[in-house]
């Protein structure tokens, strides 16, 4: 089963590789999905909060296109479903009654309610070319696909584990040599 979603991918050690709070993602998302500019209708939302030291932080919140979507399970009128072809979760806006149970059920804050129609709205990946990813100036929004994402994670983990293991082995053999030579 193919799945794709948008991931926030910051590097907190690099000042430019974090969400800069420019919110161009909200602008282009609303334009692409509604034909109008309106950040309140954006499927991706930048949330500000004060984590510590009183310095404001910005964090992008967007649907993670789950394989077993809780929003779907929570929907009383079956308006939410999985689109196997696109690999995403979709809302049938005609069927949606706007009860907000999907908003409540989602642990990622990925569901929104349209401020005008009142019905559920969510990330559509813009049909495969997400505009938020295309215009994010710090490049911290990434479109990932489940297979390559898992493989990439494994590859990174393998390289890291290899480095650690090799370091350990070398240190150990150094120690052994010192013991053998008696000093």
């Amino acid at each position, binding site marked *: 089963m193919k799945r794709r979603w948008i991931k926030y991918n910051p590097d907190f050690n690099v000042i430019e590789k974090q969400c800069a709070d420019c919110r161009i993602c909200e*602008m282009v998302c609303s334009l692409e999905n509604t034909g109008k*500019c309106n950040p309140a209708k954006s499927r991706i939302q930048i949330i500000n909060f004060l984590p510590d030291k009183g310095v404001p932080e910005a964090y992008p919140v967007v649907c993670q296109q789950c394989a077993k979507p809780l929003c779907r399970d929570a929907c009383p009128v079956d308006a939410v479903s999985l689109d196997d072809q696109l690999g995403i979760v979709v809302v049938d806006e005609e069927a949606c009654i706007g009860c907000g149970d999907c908003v409540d059920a989602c642990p990622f804050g990925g569901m929104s309610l349209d401020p005008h129609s009142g019905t559920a709205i969510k990330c559509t990946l813009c049909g495969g070319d997400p505009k938020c990813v295309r215009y994010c100036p710090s490049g911290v929004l990434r479109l990932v696909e489940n297979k390559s994402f898992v493989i990439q994670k494994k590859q990174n983990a393998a390289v890291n584990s290899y480095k650690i293991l090799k370091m350990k082995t070398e240190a150990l053999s150094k120690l052994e040599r010192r013991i053998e030579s008696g000093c």
Partner: protein
Amino acid sequence: MAVKGSYAGKICRIDLSNGRVEKEDLSPEFAVKYAGGRGFSSRILFDEIKKGVEPLSEDNKLIFSVGALTGTPVPAASRSTIAAKSPLSNLHGDGHGGGYFGIYLKQAGFDVLIVEGCAEKPVYISIINGKVEIKNAEHLWGKSISAAEEIIKNEICSQRVEIASIGPAGENLVKLATIMNGQAAYARCGLGTVMGFKKLKAVVVGGDMDIEIADADKLYAAMDEYKRVITEDAYCPPAAKYGTPRFMMHRVKFGIHGAKNWRYGGFGWEGLSHEVFREKHTLKATSCPNCLMMCRRDMFIKDGPFAGTFTKVEWETIARSMTCGLTKTEDVIRFAKKLNEYGMDVEGVGDTIAFAMECYEKGILTKSDTGGMELNFGDIDCILDLVDKINYRQGLGDVLAEGTLRASKHIGKDSIKYAMQVKGVEMTAGDPRGMPVRAVSYATSTRGSDHLRSNPYIEEMISPEEGLKWFGSEEAASLKGVKGKGRMLKFSEDLVTIGDLLGLCKFAFYRSATLNFLYQKGVKLATDFYNACMGTSLTEEGMLEAGERTFNIEKAFNVREGADRSLDIIPERFFTEPIIGGSSDGAIVEREKFEKILDEYYESRGWDKSGIPTHKKMTELGLGDIADELNLK
């Protein structure tokens, strides 16, 4: 007929004297002709503020206008304008700010907000989705910017609102007061003072109205092109890396720090370099709305006795800190924090404090004037103390709160020599000595001394061939040259005015490493963006003409108030005292060259020798009615 394109389509007029609220349609003809933002506010200001109106009276108006492209995804299009007759210059006044205020005002349903009259008691205006309310603000009076914002946000029960407010400085009618939107300032011309006189603490805006885009595909294409240009234009990557503190390299290159009240070109700047700010105080790169450059920097003091101090610091804060002789980054951040919370213009206050310090150095001010305080350049405690005194108008602060020009009149004794101002508005940016176009640009700006009215950098970056092609003389490319400089300044002013019409940031669109990139971003792409959003087919020439039209309206405002060539002048110091130290050591502004460039400038503007627009020129620009009203020849 309703206006088309990315406008909200409405003007809101609020009279604080009687609480009346009127909503008018934005007419399509007006929108097309004046093209948004500063174009709207300048024309309305001209039409509605009659000759001789006292800036601090209930006849002055505060006009908020949103950039034409603000509220669209156009990169760095977030700016809005606030205009009023300036209590510093008694002439046209305006200030421009980035941030979300303009976007939310548009989404609340209005392109322009006109505030008239004065309230009896402190009030704030709330505009949410077209609903306008005037609310009591007595409990907010006296509060700092951030404290008032927090209370208002709790009252409105929403985080998705934006607030333009004044701090204690505006309330106390300090003429150097700004209007703040969070940490972003509508800084110049004493706008906060006008707002304080109206007893208007804040304007709160919020909404979720749709903004139309005529042609989304064209918009995306222009955005892609802009993205490409900012990776190729050598100006952009360092700007993105360091933010505006990178201008230190520019100031060092030309030796134009304006240090210690605009005397020294050589200055111990190393402690304030962009590298120090990046290494010591930058937690992360931030950005104004929609901006792909990410040059905004909020600075944080990580350790030491002032650990935890956090505020937005832009280049002008660093520049004016040098004008006051500061050499440590912590001092700059503390200075900025105080001004941002009180709602004060860092340029005005920086120059005013430096003025007082030089007067003290020269013995014009003594300890009996200062209340026992020693005013020494570089003494941060003294500077912060003076900021407090200006803010609350105590002692010497009461005199300085009037700005350098009025303070020097009050103090007398030749102190006018040390008041660094043009038309009553304090100096900005870098020293003009050795930089011919820059020198004249400070004089010709329609809102008093100002580098952002023209971005006078073209003379530093073009080749002689380009000078000949664009401005009619190879001399235009030389810092020693004269010919072509006036035409260059005229072009430069029209060019950057486009940014204020459309709501585009000057750093993102009107600074480049080459003239080609500058034109590509500032005119070509700006026009493409405008046409994509509005569904129009305006030409690049038409865009430049819109800039020229707005500039002429402001000039006409000033002419009606009696301004002529005699006011288009810079402080005497620049003509007579050579710059001390640095790479421009010994440079002055040569008076003869200054006058020649000014002549050429007036000529290229189609104005007469005394700097008065001609009837012919105004009519060409579609401003015949203004020409008639002023009886222009």
